[in-house]
């Protein structure tokens, strides 16, 4: 019986070459789908033909993170408490039930200067009924939409022990859920109760002013859906933007809890003294 010789390409040298090639190709295949290439394409205007640019000067230009500044203005006199903003916010981020990145409060002030505030389901269902549990003569009543104040002096980022929350050079206070350990310090530190612990991921979460939309030249979701223009957002480096004009004009703008020295970038138009 003749023993067949192994074919020459299966000698040790060829075998090692093949194994090496295989492992290199395999590891490349593992890496390839992870790449950020697709996401970078998203930033190009050509891939978002359906969505017109709402914040001028962002698309198709280099984004210098140190040169940008934005502001958010809530016009209390125009809020009708429909809750569109809350619905949009919940849908944009799939916020779990019972937690709110933004919400709308209803204030009622009587003639004894007592203030009653309620916020059924964060305003998610709108305000369908007048408040029935109090029997007072209403002197003043209004809605106050609340969201992250994007403070310049941020109490929440200062207390984070792991650097999971931070202020970006363009003024947004964001979360890094990969680093967050869910200790909840930031939730206690925030004077505006803007943060919560996500029951699914067990990490802190907050309103980002839709940073992912802003960087693509789109308005935050709540601003986009607001039917009355009660929520306004824009660049402070753009002299034609509505927020720039309002901030530069003579209107009375206030910030919440000014005495705490947090220097919010969220301004309120028409807010009464009682709003906290």
């Amino acid at each position, binding site marked *: 019986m003749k023993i067949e010789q192994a074919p020459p390409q299966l000698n040790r040298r060829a075998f090692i070459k093949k194994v090496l090639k295989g492992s290199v190709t395999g590891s490349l295949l593992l890496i390839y789908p992870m790449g*950020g290439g697709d*996401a970078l394409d*998203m*930033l190009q205007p050509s891939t978002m033909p*359906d*969505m*017109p640019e*709402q914040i001028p000067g962002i698309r198709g230009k280099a984004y210098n*993170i140190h040169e940008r500044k934005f502001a958010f203005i809530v016009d209390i*006199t*125009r*809020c*009708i*408490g*429909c*809750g*569109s903003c809350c*619905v*949009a916010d919940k*849908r*944009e981020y799939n916020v779990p039930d019972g937690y709110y990145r933004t919400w709308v409060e*209803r*204030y*009622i002030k009587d003639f004894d200067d007592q203030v009653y505030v309620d916020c059924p389901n964060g305003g998610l*269902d*709108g*305000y*369908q*009924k*007048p408040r029935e549990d109090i029997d007072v003569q*209403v002197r003043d*009543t*209004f*809605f106050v939409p609340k969201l992250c104040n994007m403070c310049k002096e941020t109490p929440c980022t200062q207390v984070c022990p792991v*650097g*999971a*929350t*931070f*202020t*970006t*050079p363009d003024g947004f206070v*964001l*979360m*890094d859920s*990969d*680093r967050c350990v869910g200790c909840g310090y930031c939730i206690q530190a925030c004077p505006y109760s803007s943060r919560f612990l996500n029951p699914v991921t067990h990490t802190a979460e907050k309103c*980002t002013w839709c*940073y*992912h*939309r802003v*960087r*693509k030249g*789109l308005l935050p*979701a709540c601003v*986009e*859906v607001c*039917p*009355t*223009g009660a929520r306004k957002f824009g660049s402070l480096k753009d002299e034609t933007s509505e927020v720039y004009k309002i901030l530069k004009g003579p209107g009375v703008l206030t910030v919440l809890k000014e005495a705490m020295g947090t220097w919010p970038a969220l301004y309120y138009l028409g807010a009464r003294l009682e709003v906290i």
Partner: protein
Amino acid sequence: MSNYALRLIAVATTLVVATGIGFVVKAQLIPDSFGKYGHYRANAIDEEVQRPIRHGTNTSCLKCHTYEAAIHLKGRHNTISCEFCHGTYADHVSNGKKSGTLPVKKNTEISTLCLRCHNTEIKARSQAVIKTVAMPQHLESQEVKLTHTCNQCHHVHAPLKYINRAKQITGLTEAES
């Protein structure tokens, strides 16, 4: 070499090795881009930017829905977002194709939806911003059945469309847009 010198070299070597290991472990534990802008991972900013967009704009919707566009843009409801009533753009369109059915409110649900903004009982909303009605007084004053839903007279996309047309035909009052 004396015993003392050997001991000294051993201690020094241990120290150098321990420091080296310390630096290596530190480099391993500190994530990439940490400290670029501050005490945080600068890459977290880019990761936030890459979050998928779920809400489009009205322009995105009306680009395909031209029939609705012609009505919606002319009416008083032109500032209302399509996605508030119909669900998000992302749930409807993926890869440029329609997917799923969108929720559209029917019958009494529609009146609830309308009263979410137009209920006059909610005093906190400014009359200057939105026109409100009392129910069922509005139905009584218009002399229609109390079971009527809002959309039997008011087109949901342009609430005064039929009203104005009726006024034009009957010549009762000047039509308003």
